[in-house]
């Protein structure tokens, strides 16, 4: 997965580390540790401790320590788990296509308007996105009113309360960040790499696929991981948009806690979400390594 640029940078910094000038301090001096201590403490208190405790608590139920919470989670929410994975992967795929298309277009063409406007959803909170999608995609929402005018069909099914609306909302909210990251990576690819490919007869589409994407591999991976994690962990959008059943896992977790005060199953569902992310990331990385090796 390492690109040459990354490896060069890595080896460069290794060289620099070996030849440190005499005035440079040691790698891990006490002042350094003190400087990062507040950040580390926050991370430990607010993230690492709750993570560990939620893993522990997922194995504790009224029946004592065991897999009771997981048994319950699978028997009640297996459909939701599959639904969550499916919706997230579908959204991710669409985000990938859209963000690469926009980033690719902007790498070859100057269009300040597009370059500005694609970022707008970044600044709109999840709650607002959920609510406006609910209004926009409702059976008598803005989209359907416009479509009815155009097509002349008076009653159209609304997208807001099905998987379609959910995917549209996720994609709309998530693609700008992915585009921002991928465009940044595309823009740091030297012009001469692109020109060399065009010069040999490559089309722009092929340049994006065969030159820009592979060279930007690590950044694309980061963009996709961020998109995946924030989609699978998002609560507000699936609370407002989507069918009553099946639902995304965060909704189930919130439901277990709010109505049953059942932290055990909620934690088990949380741990299952982590496992989903880890397993998919593992397969993705393995796939990438194979591609690289081929």
């Amino acid at each position: 997965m390492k690109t040459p640029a990354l490896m060069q940078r890595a080896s460069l910094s290794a060289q620099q580390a070996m030849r440190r000038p005499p005035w440079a301090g040691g790698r891990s001096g006490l002042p350094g540790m003190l400087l990062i201590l507040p950040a580390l403490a926050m991370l430990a208190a607010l993230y690492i401790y709750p993570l560990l405790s939620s893993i522990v608590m997922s194995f504790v139920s009224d029946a004592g320590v065991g897999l009771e919470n997981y048994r319950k989670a699978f028997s009640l929410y297996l459909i939701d788990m599959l639904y969550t994975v499916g919706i997230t992967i579908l959204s991710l795929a669409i985000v990938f296509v859209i963000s690469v298309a926009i980033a690719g277009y902007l790498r070859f063409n100057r269009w300040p308007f597009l370059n500005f406007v694609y970022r707008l959803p970044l600044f709109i909170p999840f709650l607002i996105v959920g609510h406006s999608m609910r209004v926009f995609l409702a059976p008598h929402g803005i989209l359907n009113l416009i479509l009815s005018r155009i097509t002349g069909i008076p009653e159209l099914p609304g997208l807001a309360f099905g998987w379609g609306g959910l995917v549209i909302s996720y994609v709309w909210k998530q693609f700008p960040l992915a585009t921002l990251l991928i465009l940044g990576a595309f823009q740091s690819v030297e012009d001469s790499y692109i020109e060399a490919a065009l010069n040999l007869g490559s089309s722009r589409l092929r340049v994006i696929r065969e030159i820009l994407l592979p060279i930007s591999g690590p950044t694309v991976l980061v963009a996709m991981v961020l998109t995946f994690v924030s989609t699978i962990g998002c609560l507000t959008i699936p609370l407002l948009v989507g069918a009553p059943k099946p639902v995304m896992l965060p909704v189930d977790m919130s439901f277990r806690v709010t109505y049953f005060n059942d932290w055990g199953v909620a934690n088990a569902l949380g741990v299952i979400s982590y496992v989903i992310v880890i397993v998919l990331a593992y397969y993705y990385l393995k796939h990438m390594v194979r591609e690289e090796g081929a």
Partner: protein
Amino acid sequence: MATLEIQGLTKTYGQLKALDNVNLTVQEGELMAVLGPSGSGKSTLVRSIAGFVAPDAGHILLGGRDITFERPEKRNTAMVFQSYALWPHMTVLQNITYGLKLRRLSPEEIARKVEWALDLVDLSGLEGRYPRQLSGGQQQRVALARALVVDPEILLLDEPLSNLDAKIRYRLRFEIKKLQKRLNITTIYITHDQEEALSIADSVVLLKDGKVLQAGRPEEIYSNPKNSFVAEFLGASNVITDLVLQDREGLYVMLGGARLPVPAYKQPGEEVSIVIRADEVELGGEMPEGDHEHVSFSGKVNDQMYLGSRRRYEIETVEGHSLLIDSDRELPTGSVIRLCVDRDKIYIY
């Protein structure tokens, strides 16, 4: 292989004229060196031939076909970049194969051509390496192979050797020339190094501020530089400016007590440039009586520098001009000597 014709090519960037009405013809199989200082427009020229720059005016004809506004991918030119632009995520083999795959050749044909190209640039055995695992010279060869393997109509070399150290540069220069002759491929070679241009090219074009200052065979342009800039750029180390004098015999200028005639288009009192190459002056020794082929003048050795095979002397003339002269003779600093130079080797503008 094809003839390249450039007619009235002009490109402006804001106030800057990168190309100013450039007219050139490169014959089939000819290697033309485009020489010029940085900012002279030579890169813009080659980039507009490749299609990365759209000219404001003029035409580019390749084999009679007008390609001025054709997309780069349709032109069938092949460019070797100064940075080589080898794709870092592809092996040598993948880099070289890329253009062939785009041409939808059969796997057998691709294999045959790649083998030919690897053999051509003497890189067999390195197919599986990544660019970062190659030396600069090897990377340069891969870039050359990648360009040549697609059988382009014209080869564009944009300062192909400027990132290499002197020894490899010297060797690769001759290899490129041999290769180009063997394949008989029309080639444009961009460089800022006059020695490289003169040694490799069939014809040399000197650009400055987007204009062609002079074009011709290397010998022609070297022995008949059109003006002091061309002379200086082609390696003349001494450009002396002085004022034109006049007496009954006509216009002249003085150098080391010798009288040098000045072209008639000059006015008395006007500035004139005298251009002399460091290695074309003989130090010491008297000129035979009645020799009209040579000019003899005198100067004082002010300083010297040992260069290995020869010495470089700084000579001061009685007029206060300072000249750099190379010689294999050993002379003490401070000595006053006679200098002798072929009349044809003094350029006065």
